[in-house]
C-alpha cells in the first residue's frame, strides 16, 4: 500500500492466501454489520448502511481483489439473509467495484506523511470510489427495466448520499486505527 514503504508491493491482482483470508473476513464483517442500517429523516427510503465504509477500507488496505470480494460477497450475503436472493445481483457487483476502485485509487497515490492530510485524502478517495463504483447500478435499466431518470433519482443518487456519509465518516476512522497497527506488525 502507498502508506507502508516497508511492505513489498504485490501485483495488483495477486491472489495469495492473505488476499483470500482478509477478503473473507471483510465480507463476513460487511455481511454481519450490513444488517444494521437507519433511515435518513425526511427521505422515503434512503438508508445509511454504516458497514459500507468497510468496502473502500478493505480495498485500500488489502488490494483490488480483496476490496472487490468484500463488496460483492458481503452485499450478496446481506441480500441472502434478508431474503432478496440474487434479485439485486448488480448492486453486489457495484459494491465490489467500489472496493476495487478504492484499491486502485490508493495504490497510485504517493505516500502522505501528514496524518490529517492522509485522513482527508482517505475520505475523498473513498467517496470518489463510491461515486464511480455505484455507477454500475445503471444496469438497472435492463435488470429492473426502469428508465435512466429513475435509475439516477431513485437509485444512484440516494445510494451515493447514504453510502457517501458512511465512507466519509467511518473509512478514515478505520484507516487511522489500522495504520499504526499495520506498521508495527509489518503487515
Amino acid at each position, binding site marked *: 500500500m502507498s502508506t507502508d514503504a516497508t511492505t513489498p508491493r504485490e501485483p495488483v491482482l495477486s491472489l495469495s492466501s492473505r488476499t483470500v483470508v482478509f477478503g473473507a473476513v471483510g465480507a463476513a464483517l460487511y455481511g454481519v454489520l450490513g444488517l444494521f442500517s437507519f433511515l435518513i429523516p425526511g427521505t422515503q427510503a434512503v438508508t445509511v448502511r454504516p458497514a459500507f465504509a468497510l468496502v473502500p477500507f478493505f480495498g485500500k488496505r488489502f488490494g483490488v481483489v480483496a476490496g472487490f470480494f468484500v463488496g460483492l*460477497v458481503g452485499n450478496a450475503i446481506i441480500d441472502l439473509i434478508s431474503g432478496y436472493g440474487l434479485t439485486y445481483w448488480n448492486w453486489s457487483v457495484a459494491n465490489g467495484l467500489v472496493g476495487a476502485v478504492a484499491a486502485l485509487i490508493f495504490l497510485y497515490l504517493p505516500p502522505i506523511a501528514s496524518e490529517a492530510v492522509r485522513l482527508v485524502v482517505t475520505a475523498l478517495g473513498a467517496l470518489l470510489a463510491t461515486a464511480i463504483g455505484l455507477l454500475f447500478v445503471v444496469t438497472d435499466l435492463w435488470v*429492473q427495466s426502469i428508465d435512466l431518470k429513475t435509475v439516477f433519482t431513485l437509485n444512484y443518487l440516494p445510494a451515493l448520499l447514504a453510502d457517501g456519509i458512511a465512507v466519509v465518516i467511518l473509512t478514515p476512522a478505520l484507516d487511522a486505527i*489500522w495504520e499504526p497497527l499495520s506498521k508495527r506488525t509489518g503487515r
Partner: protein
Amino acid sequence: MDVTPRYLGAGSFLSRRDPRVLLLVPVLYLVAVAGIDDLRAVLLCTAVALVYYRAAGIPWRGVRANWVFMLTITTILVVVNSILTSAETRVDGNAEVLFTAPITHTAITWTTLSYASTILVRYISLAMVGFPVAFNIAPSDLGVAFARLGLSQRLAYGVDLTFRFLPSTWASLHETVDAQRIRGYEHSRSRNPVKKLLALRPVVIPLTVNALMDAEDTVNAMDLRGFGGRHRTWMRELAFDRIDRLILAGFAAMAAVMVTAKILGLTGTVWVP
C-alpha cells in the same frame, strides 16, 4: 436475527440436486423475467417458480421472518415508485383515470395498477428461486459449487471461508457491544445520521481490528498447510445427473422462449384487463 447459514431444506428434492443447479436456476430465471411488462407472462413464470420453491421443502416457520421482511420492503418500494410517485411506471394517456393518489396527485389507471402488480409479482417470484440458494445448499458445498462453475479455486475457497466466519463475527459483535456497554457505550438515539455514525465507531472499529488481527493466524495456518497447492482436499467432485440436466434444460428453454417473446414484442406491453 440469525446470520448463521441455515440448511433448512435438507432431504428435499432440491437439496438432493447438484448445488450448481441451485446457483444456475436463478440466473436463467432472471434472464426469463427481466423486462417483461405483461402481467400474464410474469404470472406464468411465477407458477414455474412456485413449483420450484415447493420442491425446496423449506419449512415456513424457518423463513417466515425473511418473507415478511422481503414482502414489506418490496411492497413499499413498488407502491412508492409505481403508484404514488409514478417514478417507475408505464403511462397510457388514453386510459380512464380510476382515482388520484393523495398528496402526489398521480393519476391512477388500470395500466398503472397492472404494471405495479407485474413488478411486485416479478420480485416475489425472484425471491422464490433465490431462497433455495440460501437454504438448500449445504454451507460446505457452496465454495465447491462456485469452483466447479469455473470460479478461481482460491476465490471459491474465500466464499466458503466467509460463511465459516459469519457465526464467529456475529458472536464477536455481541462481545464488543457488551464490552463497550460496560465502558458506558449507549446506542445513539439522535435522528442525525452523522451523530449516529460517529456513535457507532466504538463498535465498528474494535470489531474490525480484532477480526483482522485474528485473520493473520488463519493466513499463517493456511500457508503452513500449503494452501493453493495442487492437491485440494476440500474440492470434492460434483456431477450433474439426468434430473439436474432436465431442470437446467427446462429453465434454459423458458428463458429462451421469454427472450424471444420479448424480442418479438409480445410481452413488452402492459396488460390491461
